[in-house]
Each structure stands twice: as C-alpha cells, then as structure tokens.
C-alpha cells in the first residue's frame, strides 16, 4: 500500500510510529531519547550528517543512510540514485571527498529481477558520475509483505579536506546563507506518481552528487562554516536543525529562494509549502559575509548548483528560530514540522 507521508505525532509513545521516520520533530526526539544516550560519544554528539573521525592522524568522515522510497522508480531517478547520491552528499556536507561506499540490500521476496537490475544499473552510473567505488555490500531477502520491495542502505567513507570543522558549531552571526538551487523537485516528483494524487508534468527528482560544487568552494579557500543537504523536511528542517544547535537566528527572504514553475504549480494545487518539500540534490552553505559573493560565483559555475542564490543571513539570538520575510514584506517564523507535510484542501 502506498503510504503518503508521516502521521500523527503523539505525546508519550510506547511504539514506533511512521512519523518517527519523517525527519522532523519526532525523529529528533527518537534520536535524543533512545539512540544518543545509548551510544554517546563526541562524534555522535555533534549531531551532524556524518561523523568526522581521526584515525592515526588522518581525518575521515563516515556516514550511513537507509533508503526507503515508494515507488522505487520515479521521474528523474530510482532508489539506487538516492542511495548513492545521498550518502556522497552527506560526506560532502562534512567537507569530505567521497572515498568508498558499501551497499546493503534488503530485498522483498517477489521483487522483480528487472526492477533490481534497473536499480543496480542506476547505482553504477551514479557511482561513476560521483567518482566513488562501491567496494563492499550485503544482501538479505525477507518474506513477501515485509519489505516494501527493497530497502537499501549505503555507508560511505570520505577523506576530510576542509581545513576547519564544518558544522553548526562553526556558524557565526553575520554569516551568509546560500541555497544551491531551486526547491522541492524531488518531493513533487514522487507525489506525481503517488496514487490518489498523481498529475502530469515535467517534474524530475533533483537527485545528484554535490561534492564537485563543495570541493570547488573548499579548494578556493572559502571559509565554509557549515553545509547541510536538504532532504526530508526540506529547507525549513535543515535551517531549523542548524539554528537550534548553533543557538543563533537565521532569517531568509522568500523572494530570493527559487522554486521552479512546475513545483510551484504542484504545491499550489496540493496546498503544500515548498519550504518543507523534500530535495535530493540541494544544500545550504553558511559562509562569512565577505566570502558570499565569491562563493556564489563558484557555486554557479557547477551544474548541480547553477541556480545558487543568497537566501538569508545569520543573526545573534540564542532562541535558535528561523524566520522568513515573505514576498509581500510581512514576517513569520519558519517552524520545524511535526510529522510530514500533508496535502490540504482548505
């Protein structure tokens, strides 16, 4: 059964809800209340996309992600593309060059071999484009009815090339907030083929590896303070997570943030806010004000970030809120989502 998105958050939960996987408030609660206390260590405490580790003097980054998407194949990509690019991007967000990936396949009995081949071919191509080998893997099969077709885990290792720590703790008041391109393509691409909500239109997922753009920033000596890729929960979730950890206020301008016409049309039709829709090939970068102009030039010279813009600024304010100046000049808080965004008619 196609599930649309994540459901009701509840006060004291005695069981896992779909919402716990939504990437918003409940996911964070789960991490804070179950996983962090159990596994506590410095790398984990930094609450960043990946862990930066020191191994005999070498600085490495490591990240893992499990991909669950329905449908497995969608306009612009497959679960395979997401799995490769997503992990490559998480490494990039640590300022690390992707070095190697592993791939773990949890296959549902009955999955079509042709679908599997399509996904694997997509992974090969994505890995080739990202210049990262898939060096090891694992396969398990579960009974029919328990696997949603395919669950895919990729774990990545990278070599940290950023000279200083890249993460929310490095963000400073006055920093410029850059967004690498237009919002919402992935989420809308998925919805366009979901039963009950489908529509026609040329919307393709924006899944892509962002390392080349990040590498260019680092190579030219831009003092990158923080990077975060925009995935579930969209731009809003990424900014909120950073603002909360950094204990600073982030303000963005709606008029500056690009959304393609088709994504806009779909969002209007379904009553969705593009700031909360998922992306798979977009990231935010926090750089000092003085580096902002140069950083934008560099980003715009790479395909994956050709649409980069300056979206906002960081301010001193320990509340850790994210505010938005609307297109018409009013202000509001861009809050963290509870659960995931649902289409509405009212």
């Amino acid at each position: 059964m196609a599930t649309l998105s994540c459901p009701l958050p509840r006060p004291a939960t005695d069981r896992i809800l779909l919402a716990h996987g939504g990437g918003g408030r409940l996911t964070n609660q789960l991490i804070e209340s179950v996983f962090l206390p159990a596994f506590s260590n410095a790398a984990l405490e930094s609450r960043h996309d990946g862990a930066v580790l020191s191994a005999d003097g070498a600085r490495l980054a490591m990240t893992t992600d499990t991909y669950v998407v329905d449908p497995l194949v969608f306009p612009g990509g497959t679960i395979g593309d997401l799995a490769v690019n997503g992990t490559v991007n998480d490494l990039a967000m640590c300022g690390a060059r992707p070095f190697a990936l592993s791939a773990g396949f949890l296959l549902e009995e009955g999955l079509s071999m042709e679908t599997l081949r399509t996904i694997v071919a997509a992974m090969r191509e994505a890995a080739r484009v990202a210049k990262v080998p898939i060096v090891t893997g694992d396969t398990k099969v579960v009974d029919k009815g328990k696997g949603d077709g395919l669950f895919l885990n990729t774990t990545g290792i990278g070599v940290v090339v950023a000279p200083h720590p890249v993460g929310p703790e490095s963000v400073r008041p006055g920093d410029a907030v850059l967004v690498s391109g237009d919002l919402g393509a992935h989420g809308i691409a998925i919805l366009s083929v979901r039963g009950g909500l489908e529509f026609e239109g040329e919307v393709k997922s924006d899944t892509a590896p962002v390392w080349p753009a990040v590498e260019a920033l680092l190579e030219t000596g831009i003092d990158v303070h923080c990077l975060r890729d925009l995935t579930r929960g969209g731009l809003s979730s990424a900014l909120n997570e950073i603002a909360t950890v950094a204990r600073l206020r982030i303000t963005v301008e709606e008029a500056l943030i690009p959304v393609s016409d088709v994504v806009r049309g779909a969002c209007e039709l379904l009553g969705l806010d593009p700031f909360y829709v998922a992306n798979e090939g977009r990231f935010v970068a926090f750089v000092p004000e003085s580096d902002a102009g140069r950083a934008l030039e560099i980003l715009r010279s790479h395909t994956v970030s050709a649409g980069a813009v300056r979206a906002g600024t960081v301010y001193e304010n320990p509340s850790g809120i994210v505010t938005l100046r609307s297109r018409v000049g009013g202000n509001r808080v861009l809050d963290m989502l509870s659960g995931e965004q649902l289409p509405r008619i009212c």
Partner: protein
Amino acid sequence: MCLAVPGKIVTIVQEEHLGLRRGKVDFGGIRKEVCLDYTPEARVGDYVLVHVGFALTVVDEQEAQRVFEALRQLDQLDELSENGT
C-alpha cells in the same frame, strides 16, 4: 473550505458514459484532469478556479484587472499630491 487554484483549460472532453464534461487544466506546467460540469460555459483557453478536482468558476479577466487599475489611479493621485507640495 478554501483552496481553489486558477488554471488554464487545455482540452475539453464530453464523456460518452454519463455525459459529463472533463478537461485537462494546466497549473503553471502541472496538468490535471478536472471535472468541468459546473462550468458549462468554460472554453479551451479560459482560466477556471479548481477545488478538489472541480472547476467552480471561470475567472472574469476584466474584473481581475480592476484592482490594478484602482492602484494605478491611486499612484497617480499620490504623484500629483507629492508634486503639489
């Protein structure tokens, strides 16, 4: 209940079965099939307001301009009074 979105009618089909009018409506590049039964006067190229898959009115393009005309006039009045002081 509120969310009605303006879109342009691209095609119109009169169904055999129950005689219903359906059409493809374009919303900024997204196309969706919409029931046009409640807007029998709507033609291809018209803009309609669509709520939960139903066109409920044809947008009156002349009326749509009215507020901008009024604002233009206000603007001119402003300029006049500024120049006057």
